[in-house]
């Protein structure tokens, strides 16, 4: 790892000031992704501002919703009783990601800011537009099994790796941030960027802006929430395709609220409200779910070499949507670690 300066911030404003005065510096919270990127020489910040002492660890009621502190750890968030009760989709998604050790370390704010695990992005010996703008994208014609099928550009076909963020997108979360120009709240759908011609930019955060929390509005999706993650091994692997699916049914069994977000397929969690609109007011069923799957993947495109393309994900995602909606209709499954020990 290259040498860098390190300071501990005593408060949010001090942290923002410290970062504002050191170009290229970074906040560090859990460090599980940033330190790895620094070891690989993908990230070379000259200065780390440790924000772990800031009072942003709480998970508290926020009106009729919930506010997740940016420094609450992923494991604490997933197993928080309010999260399990009100947002089981989020608990499931977090617990589908990483390992118990990493979930104990990783912060909620950091989860949103983790970078793609594209092998070309991680390999400093090859070009990558995200790492070195203008150098090229070897993935677009190379090994693309882990890569995008929606919203990609010839400049970058990377996917966002988070599970947590897929659930947050489905739950209409808002990202609360504080920066040199004051505080603002960013709707989750607008927080992460598509690659376009500027793939080096992952989010709309400005320089020295600090995530302070994630706000979740109330919903009535608790009874029918499923996070389906398809990966190459049973645990501790990034998603090839994941689906956060949640339904609210009225007394007649008709769908009155529907959320679907996809992970592993795009540069950001993929939410499509026109697909959700197909479900509203309808009686749930296979034909309807199949139509939704077809609709959500209507603009999907395969990238990469013919022998290692992302194209298989198009069929996989269509079917995963049907399966996730079917499972959600059956009812929210038990959350890992919530069983009563005999």
């Amino acid at each position, binding site marked *: 790892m290259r040498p860098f300066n390190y300071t501990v911030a005593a408060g949010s404003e001090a942290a923002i000031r410290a970062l504002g005065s050191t170009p290229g510096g970074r906040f560090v919270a859990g*460090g599980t992704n940033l330190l790895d990127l620094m*070891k690989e020489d993908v990230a070379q910040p000259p200065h780390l501002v440790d924000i772990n002492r800031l009072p942003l660890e709480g998970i508290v009621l926020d009106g009729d919703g919930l506010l997740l502190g940016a420094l609450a750890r992923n494991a604490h968030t997933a197993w928080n009783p309010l999260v399990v009760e009100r947002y089981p989709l989020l608990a499931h998604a977090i617990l589908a990601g990483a390992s118990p050790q990493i979930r104990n370390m990783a912060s909620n704010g950091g989860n949103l800011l983790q970078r793609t695990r594209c092998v070309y992005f991680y390999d400093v010996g090859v070009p990558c537009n995200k790492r070195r703008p203008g150098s090229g994208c070897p993935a677009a014609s190379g090994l693309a099994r882990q890569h995008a099928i929606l919203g990609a550009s010839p400049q970058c076909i990377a996917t966002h790796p988070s599970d947590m963020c897929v659930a947050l997108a489905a739950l209409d979360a808002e990202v609360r941030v504080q920066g040199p120009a004051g505080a603002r709240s960013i709707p989750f759908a607008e927080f992460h960027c598509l690659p376009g011609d500027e793939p080096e930019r992952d989010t709309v955060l400005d320089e020295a802006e600090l995530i302070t929390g994630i706000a979740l509005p109330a919903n009535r999706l608790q009874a029918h929430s499923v996070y389906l993650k398809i990966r190459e091994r049973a645990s501790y692997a990034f998603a090839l395709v994941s689906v956060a699916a949640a339904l609210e049914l009225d007394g007649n069994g008709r769908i009155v609220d529907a959320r679907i977000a996809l992970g592993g397929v795009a540069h950001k969690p993929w939410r499509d409200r026109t697909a959700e609109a197909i479900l509203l007011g309808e009686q749930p069923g296979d034909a309807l779910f199949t139509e939704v799957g077809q609709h959500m993947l209507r603009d999907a495109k395969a990238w990469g070499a013919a022998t290692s393309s992302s194209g298989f994900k198009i069929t996989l995602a269509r079917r995963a949507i049907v399966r996730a909606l079917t499972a959600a209709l059956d009812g929210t499954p038990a959350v*890992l670690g919530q069983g009563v020990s005999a």
Partner: protein
Amino acid sequence: MQPYDPNPHDASANTAASEHGRTRHGVTLRINGQTHSVEVEPWVSLLDLLRDRLDLTGTKKGCDHGQCGACTVMCDGERINSCLTLAVMRDSCEITTVEGLSNDGQLSELQQAFIDHDAFQCGYCTPGQLCSAAGLLKEGRASSVDEVRELMSGNLCRCGAYPQITSAVCSVALPASTRAAGSSTWNAPVLVGKVPA
């Protein structure tokens, strides 16, 4: 496109340390009940501090990227990957390494279970497996074999001693009645090849 750089980790990078105003930080850690005060550069991982500076070589470096779990230690009672955290970030923390699991030479119940169940072959992953399992016990979340397997998935064993590791951990973590597979309310993820399409 910039020219290919075959050696981005050039040794000269280390000399840049002298250009920084303040390169060492005082860190005090309580490790296995003993207080250690050291001066470290900010880029030293907790793992490297333990192994290289404090001679606590029980904690192993496997991948150094948080993928294998060999470096697992407990920090303030929670299991973490010591390779993915800086020593300076853990100032004032209470650390337990594999050296701290026994009590006055008496193996812990978990350590004895690993011996009784033959839960290792080469043994390199064992310190991490033990610390991870100690964290699992402290969390108290696992109530079935499937949950133990899922909650131990951050620790890889290249020798493939998983069945024995699972039974060793289950023998301590679960009452006998729940040690049969499939006793969980939680359903383990289905492998891709088994997905009904």
